[in-house]
């Protein structure tokens, strides 16, 4: 359902909060334009204090989303409504606070708070894009399967692969078992975000004379399939060829499943990564904001 049953958070209540945010921005800009202070515009004029108060209250309210989201019995609107308002009013904050600063920046705690706020807003903006974009991709990729079901299916496929390989010469079983054991989905945050298949596999050394094994990268089951293909080309026995073909079919199915799992992990990572910036820096912003307000009052 493109456009979905009820529309995205941006469309909530016929964009009620977009209009509220726009009204706030227009009002602030108008006041800023109209206001002619004796000194250059800054946070210390009456308008500066007003905008500062509005900004600080907005920040506290934006932080309160975290509380509302966890107040499962609350009747204070819906979380969806809160999130829609959070997005629009959060963006408006950029205008309100920039006007509050009167474009006076420096190497001080005030500008630190401003900088943190900007990072939080930009990360939030990324979150909005992620929320609009990734659910569809995730749904298309999962095709009705849950992650657990995919993992179960993978385990089932592995059992079948190993049973098949055990009926074949020993080297096949070794390769197939190591193929399972060395399968890696995800790993570091970076690997997750890149959607990299970090699987590896032990293959028998190329030259039979040297003996031993070598550990090679095996993205998308490529190395195993190549190795099986090579064994197939060398096989002269009818029965063994048939067995290798069957094994390749199973590994092919495993490859499809792995790709889905890797992609799923990747999308989930993108859906969450921004929160690791957005939330901690929100608290940092709160701390910087308190410092900013206190310092202003103490050093008045």
């Amino acid at each position: 359902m493109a456009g979905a049953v009820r529309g995205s958070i941006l469309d909530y209540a016929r964009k009620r909060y977009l209009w509220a945010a726009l009204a706030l921005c227009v009002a602030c800009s108008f006041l800023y334009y109209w206001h002619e202070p004796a000194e250059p515009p800054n946070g210390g004029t009456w308008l500066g204090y007003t905008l500062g108060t509005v900004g600080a209250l907005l920040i506290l309210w934006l932080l309160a989303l975290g509380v509302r989201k966890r107040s499962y019995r609350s009747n204070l609107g819906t979380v969806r409504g809160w999130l829609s308002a959070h997005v629009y009013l959060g963006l408006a904050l950029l205008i309100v606070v920039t006007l509050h600063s009167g474009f006076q920046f420096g190497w001080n705690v005030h500008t630190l708070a401003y900088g943190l706020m900007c990072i939080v807003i930009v990360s939030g903006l990324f979150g909005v894009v992620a929320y609009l974009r990734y659910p569809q991709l995730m749904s298309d990729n999962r095709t009705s399967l849950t992650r657990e079901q995919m993992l179960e299916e993978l385990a089932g496929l592995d059992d079948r692969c190993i049973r098949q390989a055990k009926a074949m010469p020993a080297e096949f079983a070794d390769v197939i078992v190591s193929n399972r054991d060395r399968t890696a989905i995800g790993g570091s945050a970076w690997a997750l975000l890149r959607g990299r298949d970090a699987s590896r596999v032990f293959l028998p050394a190329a030259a039979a004379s040297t003996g031993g094994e070598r550990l090679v990268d095996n993205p998308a089951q490529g190395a195993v399939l190549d190795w099986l293909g090579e064994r197939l080309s060398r096989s002269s026995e009818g029965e063994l060829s048939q067995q290798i073909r069957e094994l390749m079919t199973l590994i092919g199915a495993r490859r499809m499943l792995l790709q889905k799992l890797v992609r799923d992990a990747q999308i989930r990572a993108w859906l969450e990564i921004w929160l690791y910036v957005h939330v901690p820096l929100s608290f940092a912003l709160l701390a910087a904001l308190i410092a900013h307000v206190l310092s202003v009052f103490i050093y008045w």
Partner: protein
Amino acid sequence: MTATFKVAVIGAGPGGLSAATHAAELGISHVLLEQSPAHANTIQRYQKGKHVMAEPNVLPLRSPLSFEAGTRETVLDRWGNGLTQQRVNVRYGAEVVRITGCKPAFDIELKSGERVTAEHVVFAIGVQGNPRRLGVPGEDLPCVQYTLDDPDEYRDEAIVVVGAGDAAIENAIGLTRQNQVFIINRTDEFTRVKEGNLNLILKAIDDKRIECFYRAGCARIEASTNGAQRPYTLVLTTDQGEARIACDRIIARIGAIPPRKFVESCGIAFPSPEPTSLPQLSAQYESNVPGLYVIGALGGYPLIKQAMNQGYEVVEYLLGRRIDPADHPLLEKKFASLPYRRTVDETLALMQSRVPLYAEINPLLFRELILGSNVLTPKPGEAVFRKNDYTNTFFTILDGSVEIELGEEEKYRLKLGSGQFFGEMSLLSGRRRSGSVFAGPGCVLVESPRREILKMINSVEGVKRVIDQHFVIRAIQSSFAPEASYDELKTVTAGARLNRYKSEQALFNEGDEADCLHLIRSGSVSVSRNIGGRDVVTTYVAAGNYVGEMGLLGRTRRTATVRATVPTETVSLDESTFNALLDRNPRLKEQVQATVRKRVSANTRMQAQPETGDLISFLMRQGLGEATDVLLIDESLCVGCDNCEKACAETHGGTSRLNREAGPTFANVHVPTSCRHCEDPHCMKDCPPDAIRRAPNGEVYIQDNCIGCGNCERNCPYGVIQMAAKAPEKPGLLAWLLFGTGPGPGEAREKSKDAGPKKAVKCDMCKDLSGGPACVRACPTGAAIRMSPEKFVELASSGGRG
């Protein structure tokens, strides 16, 4: 040698134990015959430490044995001690195969060939019956068993599971963890099993974790010769000839033989062939055979305490003593508000004589019915229920009158007087109330819960006949002739018929001759048309509406196929009946034509976008045709934060009643595993304490008097009920945030081992939260939505991308 007793009690369950112990206490010669090797066989088979509950709390216990809620072990120990202390004459392993003779000399034949003679016989054998046996040579070998308590008890064995039902599948799957498992299926597929179990077994067979023999039957079991790897061999007959499985153990799960046949063979009569029908009993639990008594679940009393009380009472009765049943004070209290000064028995008799519907009910069943019912004395003008309420109780008018308000724009009021009844429409269809009812002066009503009335319908032929007849007439009345009187319609509607359809069965096919109109009484149907060689679903019609009117008006052929989406009942009106209705009320034709116009335009719209039909078909395949309110997830919006599940768990004792990720998806519409509040809830079917109820807004919920038996969990085809204990309280938000005490909001709570009894939990649509369902309100993106099936067409045409 034959022993003679005053009373023989068959079955050492709660009822039988109580009866025999009371007989022992009074010093009467008695014998308690139990086929299994220990007392209370059903409770013995509960898992260790299972909590046994003592509902209904209001009912006092009257038995020489003590009983209160506690673990299985405590309950069993106390009963065991009671048996010893009172020196009860129990014979274990004594299976009764035949009872002949009559009072005062019943001849009881045991399987061992032994005979027992008794003046009175008390049946306390419950309803579970004996497991169906394999019936092949070798079935008495020690490797054959009919139950499986703990699959992890066995390791590294070759085990054959015989059967293809849910129990067989669950056993087989459980055993695969540590054993080699075979399953024997008589047919070539697994039908009549839950979707989840079907998937599990097919996958296990596919993965070669279980080897399945289809179209196979057991021929015999042989003990292997010395030196064989497995001690036994099961020989099968299959299409390919004989097959042999070497095994350690055979578990047969091929159902149970209901005890009814045996009971009937003793001469006890049942009023109808319905499986749920109960034997005819007197108020003293005596059957139609003098001297044969029936107590406990077999007589329709499924709870432990009821059975124990009856055990005590039946001994008193057979001695000829008249005592008031244990529930006497409860009825006294119930009748206190009545404007009559009569005893309990007199009031009950008055009720039966006033209300013709009750006349045929035997006194014992009637007492139980009233015990489960409420007596109401509403003030004149007060609403008993309102149109579109979701309640499903049934009302009889004892005194005074009520007015029923019917009709859409124009309201008509019908008066019902003393002795009549109402509320059967919602009771039978599971749909909302079709009209409002207001109390008249001096009104006294009996409100009976759905389950009690269904019991009457299945047990008393007269009740079923009268209610069915009224249903047909009132269905026609509310749809086509709200202003007509009952008697007037009675003649007009003589040609109306009641029809039953299975799921997927067609009411009629496209191209058939149009000869009748169907009023849907329960269930729902889908309407489809053949477009380009493909069946395209164009709409869904719920109970309470009619289909097939187009053909009848134009006298043509059917333009669409109408199929039941779930088991469905309809009232069909043939052309002459329908014309008679039209003659009565010329405006009716306009009304029906307006409906036709609406449907035609909707059909045309749907044909322009056949993919919407695919979405409706998909939703119907998920069993949503019987839903009243279902949770759907729009996957194009769902970010997978699980806040819905967290909100559910946080507002419901720590257990989420929905599983967001599980379940199928089609065109971005995901059907998570969550209760859909069926019209005719499967979970309600067999709830011993009648703890599952429907609230006025349609929520199907489980009350606190749940005894944790798990019947509803097994009966739900959609897997949305689980057994869970209440999780401990959480710290406050600040305490968690600042000091990290305990789990935070949305985090799972650790459940301690002694968390208390497990009870059934399911979605209650947050009926106790003023804001409505927490899952929907907690969804940050609006992906979680709740809707009724009537909205599916709207949803589908809002843009299913397919």
